[in-house]
C-alpha cells in the first residue's frame, strides 16, 4: 500500500480543472508523450531551459516508475496524467494502476551502503528538481505522484 501523504490544497487549487488530461498506455513511448505534453505547458509559462530540463526529467522519471514499476508494462493498465497551470505554478499528477508502494520502504539512495546500487534514484531526482513532491495512493488502485514547479517571478 502507498503510505498516505497529507495534501494541503486551497479551495482555489482544488477547484482548478486540469489544462491537460492524458490516459496513456503502459509503454515507454508514453514517457515521451507525457514529457512532450508537459513541456508544452511549461514553455508557455515561460520556464527557462534549465527548469524545462528539470521538469522534463521529473516527468520522465515519474512515467518510468508508473509504466515499469507500477503497471509493469501491463497492456490492460493505464497511466493517468494531468497538468494544471496558473500564472504562479505548474502542477503535474501522474498515477498508475499498480499495487502501490510505501515510500518509506525504499532504501535511502544517499546512504553510503546504497551508493553503488543499480536503481532507486528516480524519486531522489524528482524531489531535487521540483518545488513540491508528494506521493499518495490512487483510488481505486495504484500510486499517484503530485509535483509542482513554481514559475519564477520575473
Amino acid at each position: 500500500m502507498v503510505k498516505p501523504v497529507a495534501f494541503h490544497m486551497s479551495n482555489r487549487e482544488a477547484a482548478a480543472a486540469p489544462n491537460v488530461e492524458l490516459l496513456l498506455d503502459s509503454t515507454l513511448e508514453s514517457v515521451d508523450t507525457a514529457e512532450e505534453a508537459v513541456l508544452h505547458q511549461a514553455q508557455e509559462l515561460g520556464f527557462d531551459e534549465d527548469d524545462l530540463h528539470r521538469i522534463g526529467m521529473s516527468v520522465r522519471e515519474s512515467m518510468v516508475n508508473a509504466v515499469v514499476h507500477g503497471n509493469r508494462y501491463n497492456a490492460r493498465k493505464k497511466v493517468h496524467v494531468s497538468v494544471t497551470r496558473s500564472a504562479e505554478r505548474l502542477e503535474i499528477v501522474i498515477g498508475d494502476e499498480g499495487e502501490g508502494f510505501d515510500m518509506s520502504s525504499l532504501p535511502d539512495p544517499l546512504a553510503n551502503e546504497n551508493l553503488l546500487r543499480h536503481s532507486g534514484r528516480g524519486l531522489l531526482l524528482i524531489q531535487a528538481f521540483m518545488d513540491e513532491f508528494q506521493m499518495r495512493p490512487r483510488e481505486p488502485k495504484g500510486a499517484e505522484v503530485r509535483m509542482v514547479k513554481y514559475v519564477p517571478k520575473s
Partner: protein
Amino acid sequence: MSVKLTTRQVGDVTVVDAVGRITLGEGASTFRDKIRELASSGHKKMLLNLAEVSYIDSSGIGEMVSGFTTVTNQGGQVKLLNLTKRVKDLLQITKLYTVFDVFDDEAAAVRSFS
C-alpha cells in the same frame, strides 16, 4: 537519438566517447553492453568521455554505477571525463561525485590511471 559509443586507445587507457542520451531503453542498454564487452575483453582502464552526452536519467546513472562496479571487481578502473553541467548536477544530487574520479582534461585523466 539514443547513444553512440566509439572507443580509442590512448596508451593503455581505453577512452569511450559517448554522444547522445543515456536513458532507459536503448541508450542505457547500449552503454551497459559496451562496458561489459570492454571489461570481458581485458580493458581494465576505461575513461568515459561524456562531453557530448546531453541527457542521462536514473537508469543511465544506474548503468554507469553498474559498469563501475563490474570493472572495479575485475581489478580495473573507470573514470569520467568532460561532464556537462547537467550531468555534474546529477552526480552531486546522487552523491556519486564521491564514487567516481572526474576530470576536465583528458591528458590529466589518462595520467591518473595507475
